[in-house]
């Protein structure tokens, strides 16, 4: 997967700037909430049907009827943008959930039990990581067919190694701590220790990583849809809107730029929030 190591070097940030991160952080959260809400409640919103074509009103600039104008087929841009958010966020959120649950579980088990099991897990992850992820995603969707479901599955699957690594690292550092030894001395079963003691502590770094993974997944889905190989048309997706807008760059650049800016802001928002949370839960800062 693309670079997920996005930490701002917090050591080099002066206290004044760290306080400033609060405003940026919350703006990002608000943006995500707005986008998420509009995507979730799209059918309830008073917007047009995103697939409604109007060949007479193609590539119209923003107007009262169409707040963001129309695209190359006369479809309402705002509606397509919001329904596109739906597609991008569905894939963007669900795939990392899959990766996070499976990868998180595998990583925790590997970090806790160590030994042959751990070696097996690491080995399989290495093999999976040996594949350039985009190529794998493309290949699988090519063979299995394009659909939101397939896309979510494969991107989720591709995220497993990264989550495994994060979970394992967190578990390794925790499993040595006293509260684990104490629990074992009290006769707690492995399951109990894993669920009651380790999981709450591993959850935070996993969640921070999850947010970063969402950002990456939205990007990958966007890239695939841009090439026409992601979310299948006519369902809108930010990536495919950008791809369609590409042809009209010369006389109607907003067709590409409106979804582009929305995509960028959403990815940025997830990166900011994920990174801020990661800085909070980073063991180096003693938060755990």
């Amino acid at each position, binding site marked *: 997967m693309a670079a997920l190591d996005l930490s701002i070097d917090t050591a080099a940030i002066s206290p004044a700037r760290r306080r400033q991160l609060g405003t940026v952080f919350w703006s990002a959260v608000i943006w995500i909430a707005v986008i998420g809400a509009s995507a979730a409640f799209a059918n309830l919103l008073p917007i047009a049907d995103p697939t409604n074509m109007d060949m007479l009103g193609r590539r119209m600039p923003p107007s009262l009827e169409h707040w963001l104008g129309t695209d190359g087929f006369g479809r309402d841009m705002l509606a397509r943008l919001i329904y596109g958010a739906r597609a991008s966020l569905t894939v963007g959120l669900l795939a990392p959930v899959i990766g996070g649950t499976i990868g998180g579980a595998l990583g925790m088990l590997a970090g806790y039990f160590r030994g042959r099991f751990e070696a097996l897990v690491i080995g399989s992850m*290495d093999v999976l990581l*040996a594949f350039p992820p985009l190529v794998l995603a493309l290949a699988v969707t090519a063979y299995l067919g394009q659909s939101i479901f397939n896309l979510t599955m494969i991107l989720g699957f591709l995220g497993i190694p990264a989550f495994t690594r994060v979970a394992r690292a967190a578990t390794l550092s925790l499993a040595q701590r006293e509260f684990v030894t104490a629990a074992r001395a009290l006769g707690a079963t492995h399951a109990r220790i894993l669920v009651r003691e380790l999981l709450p502590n591993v959850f935070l770094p996993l969640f921070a990583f999850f947010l970063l993974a969402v950002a990456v997944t939205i990007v990958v889905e966007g890239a695939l849809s841009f*090439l026409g190989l992601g979310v299948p048309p006519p369902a809108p997706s930010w990536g495919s809107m950008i791809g369609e807008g590409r042809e009209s760059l010369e006389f109607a*650049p907003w067709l590409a730029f409106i979804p582009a800016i929305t995509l960028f802001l959403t990815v940025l928002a997830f*990166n900011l929030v994920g990174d801020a949370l990661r800085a909070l839960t980073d063991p180096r800062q003693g938060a755990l």
Partner: protein
Amino acid sequence: MLGFVGRRILHLVPVLLAVTLMTFLIASLLPGDLAYVVLGDQATPEKVAALRHDMGLDQPIYWRYLYWLGDVLQGDLGRSFRTGQTVLQAIIERLPVSIELMLVAEITGLLIGIPLAIICAVKSGSTFDRVMTGSAFGMLSVPAFLAAILLIYLFAVQLRLLPATGYVPFGEDPLGNLRCFVLPGLTLALGEWPVLMRVLRSDMIATLQEDYIAMARAKGLKPMRILLVHALKPSSLTLVTVTGINIGRLIGGTLIVESIFALPGIGRLLVGAIYTRDFIILQGVVLFVAAGFVLMNFIVDMLYAVLDPRIRHGRA
């Protein structure tokens, strides 16, 4: 040192095998039958059965895998049923383009990232530094295809300085060839420089605190020399490692960029194969790219061991 290399090679073989297996398994995910795809409209049950027998598709899966692997090891990656060209030929034709793109991208990324890293390290904490570090972070949220659109709009549409698509072979017209790689290379470089810059900046900030830098200043050396000779060299190890790793990951980036800018590279071959449902080419290219990726990572591992002087002089 030799033991280290030997161990890594031993590790490499099973990974490569696993890659072939995975590629094969993915290829066998195809619902329906390859024979149908090949025959298309002309598919009749008899023709399909015959073709399946010819292509060995009626064999059990493990036989098919072994036959295919055997072919691959002899250099036979199959022949496209659309173009008639062998996969290997197609790959070899297009490989130089992809390599040129990756090199241009990485070099441009370094040309942007290294000076910025040095300046930011020297002016650490200043407004310039904060703006640059913030931009680097923001840049990482700009996917390659977005950057491509932006660059095309700026340079090709508005300023009309550079071509939006197209390719001229180097042999024909070196300058024209390079012109074709400016926008694609820059697109990828925009995604590379933040990582490179961050890594080098952070290492340089640490290095600049070292006693030997204070010593260099006490010797009255020129500031430029102190930066470029005394400070840059010890800070470069992580940078070199990251550059090596990135070149491998650029393979994914070239997919998008080659398609957008219509460069006849491996990435475009792959995407094209998907558009035309040319599964033979697809399988062969996926295998090639994956194996290349594995080898690339292996070389980077080796390089790292070579560069680390502790291994070089046998000291822990």
